[in-house]
């Protein structure tokens, strides 16, 4: 396998061919914030938190979807990027009804962690306070759209790992909504296998278990499943 050499934040780093900037950065302990990305799932490129500066390009690039190229000079942290990332998290907090103090995912929420790590102590934008439903029709889990950030991890894990494709996205703009099957109650879904992967990959309290507090969702099982599948660990 050929190796690519590039510069990230002034450090010369090497990368396997085809690796994304995000892969390379993580391998070298360079932190880039992410939200929609999850190891083991396809890239979505939508949260825009992992945007980085690439020398020679006037446009910011999503680290998760941009391949590391020989000689590339990347900056993952700058005043400008920090400002943009904070604004994005602020926008998310104002978009739906994120009330940490009454949330099952309080202290176990990636959105909350992002806000805290960015030193966000208040949101300057108008809280939209949309009136969104909860679906508690499934016997074990609940989806609360008020806490959904539309990262589509649930959609992707259901489609790509479980192969059920129960979840999908409906509508556009601020009306965008994650739905089960053809916008039917989750509990009535004929395609849902009740595997619970969607609940474990959800970064917020949008998907949670009834009667439990989401202390540790640990979404990293996805990489193990993918590895096991690729290496045919179960095909004996």
């Amino acid at each position, binding site marked *: 396998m050929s190796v690519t050499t590039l510069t990230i934040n002034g450090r010369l780093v090497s990368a396997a061919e085809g690796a994304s900037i995000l892969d390379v950065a993580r391998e070298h302990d360079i932190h880039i914030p992410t939200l929609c990305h999850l190891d083991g799932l396809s890239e*979505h*490129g*939508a*949260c*825009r938190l992992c*945007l980085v500066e690439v020398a020679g390009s006037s446009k*910011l*690039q*999503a680290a998760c*979807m*941009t391949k590391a190229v020989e000689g590339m000079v990347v900056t993952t942290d700058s005043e400008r990027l920090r*400002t*943009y990332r904070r*604004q*994005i998290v602020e*926008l*998310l907090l*104002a*978009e739906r009804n994120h009330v940490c103090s009454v949330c099952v995912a309080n202290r176990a929420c990636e959105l909350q962690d992002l806000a805290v790590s960015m030193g966000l102590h208040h949101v*300057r*934008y*108008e809280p*939209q306070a949309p009136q969104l439903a909860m679906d508690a029709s499934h016997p074990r889990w609940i989806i609360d759209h008020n806490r959904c*950030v*539309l990262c589509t991890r649930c959609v992707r894990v259901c489609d790509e790992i479980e192969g059920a494709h129960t979840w*999908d*996205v409906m*509508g*556009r*703009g*601020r*009306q*965008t909504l994650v739905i089960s099957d053809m916008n039917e109650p989750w509990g009535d879904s004929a395609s849902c296998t009740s595997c619970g992967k969607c609940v474990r990959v959800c970064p917020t309290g949008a998907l949670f278990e009834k009667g439990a507090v989401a202390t540790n969702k640990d979404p990293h099982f996805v990489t193990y499943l993918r590895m096991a599948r690729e290496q045919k660990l179960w095909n004996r």
Partner: protein
Amino acid sequence: MIVDDIAAVRDREHAARAAQKARIAVCSAAGCLSTGGSAVKDALTAAVAEQGAGTDVRVLGTGCLGLCHAGPLVRVDAQDAAPAMFEHVTPALAVAIVSGVVGGALPAEQRCDLTQPFFTRQHRIVTSDAGVVDAERIEDYLAANGYAALEKVLTEMRPEEVVREISASGLRGRGGAGYPTGLKWSTVAKAQGPGKFVVCNADEGDPGAFMDRSVLEGDPHRVLEGMAIAAFAVGAEQGYIYVRGEYPLAITRLKTAIRQAERMQLLGHRILDTQFNFRIDIRIGAGAFVCGEETALISSIEGKRGTPRPRPPFPAEAGLWGRPTLINNVETYANIAPIILAGGSRFATLGTEHSKGTKVFALAGRIVNTGLVEVPMGIPLREIIYDIGGGIPDGRTFKAAQTGGPSGGCIPAAHLDLPVDYEALAGIGSIMGSGGLIVMDETSCMVDVARYFMEFCRDESCGKCIPCRAGTVQMHEILLKMTRGTADERDLGLLEQLAELVTRTSLCGLGQTAANPVMSTLHHFREEYMAHIRDKVCPAGVCPMHAEDRP
């Protein structure tokens, strides 16, 4: 059908035309049809039959005749007489026109002055067939030298020569961004592998824009011919026209045109008896503005949700179903046949240094001559608005011209002498866009205009990336506060920061340009914003300026 047969059709048409005493063209674009154009056409046809002039006089439904506000329009081309045009034609006047044609003296009323600048200052390339070609007859298009460019390409040129010709013409994408067409073609041509695609983007979505619709409705074959030439040049055998569902007439005429062209072996297998195969299918959009963005359009054609994805890879490398895909806009394809016939270098003599040829604009808003015009690149904005457009009605004064729709900006009076080309418009914070040109006078409030376009982007955001989905919501919220007199200077600061964020971090062109109307109005009309914020006054008297639901 082979080349000789095509020639025979042309000869037959020319002979028939020479024998005709007159041709009466009714504008059959959606604008004139909405004001009674089809009743006028029926009246004309009936009158011709009644007066026994069936062989002498031909009635045809053609593409947009331009002066939309005066519709229905009827144009008369009689042998040995100057062409005449009638405006606001009623079925009764239609009968009188036929009598006039038969009797040799046309009615004097409701005549449209064809020597006015609206007609004389235009330069028609894309719209040259309007008034000449019946949109539903391929024979008319053939008689106007249609498909001659395709014939030339297939019989005399190699694909790389075609690409070179397009490059030499300097043609740039007419969808708005102005990417050099020749460069795009050569990228797709060089891409490896079979199964390439040619796609026509007919998802015209800007408010107030109807250029592409007029071309599709009036001259569908010209678009098909342009696509076929492109397919030959880049090595594709399958094409798609992605047309919005809101254009039923365009869809019907395209379907008719494709059927006619297939029957004459101008599309399909072994076109003109050569080895070249090319099939075109129509895909109908479901009303999402974002599907005009090429990666979202591709996703939609593939049958998926119409959401964009980051580029690279560009569609030229990996587009439809991962294959190299050429995507051009309707007007771009409509320019191809004329370029091939006239030669690229000849085309390049028209326009400015970096913007060649002509541009079709849809004039709308506070302007006397609302309609469709085609002008050479580089023409001063003042000439389009005052000479061709006839100026501002009701004795009011010009305030701003909006180009590029929700991705564009507002141009103030100080820049009226600006030559209209890609660079000049971008230089003052607007864009060429697809060709919508909305004129505003002092009764328009620029804050409200910005709010309107932001509302449009907010509602049309696909919802995939956060800056566009949630940023447009917040920008609209602030603009709304301004129009209600409840915004303060903190809000102005937030608005400017959000504009930068959404521009710099959004995933696709919709978001990246969504703040343009705000930024350009802030740049050119900042004092109007300050009046809303500081003095709680709307100088144009448009905004309500009162709070709602505030403690």
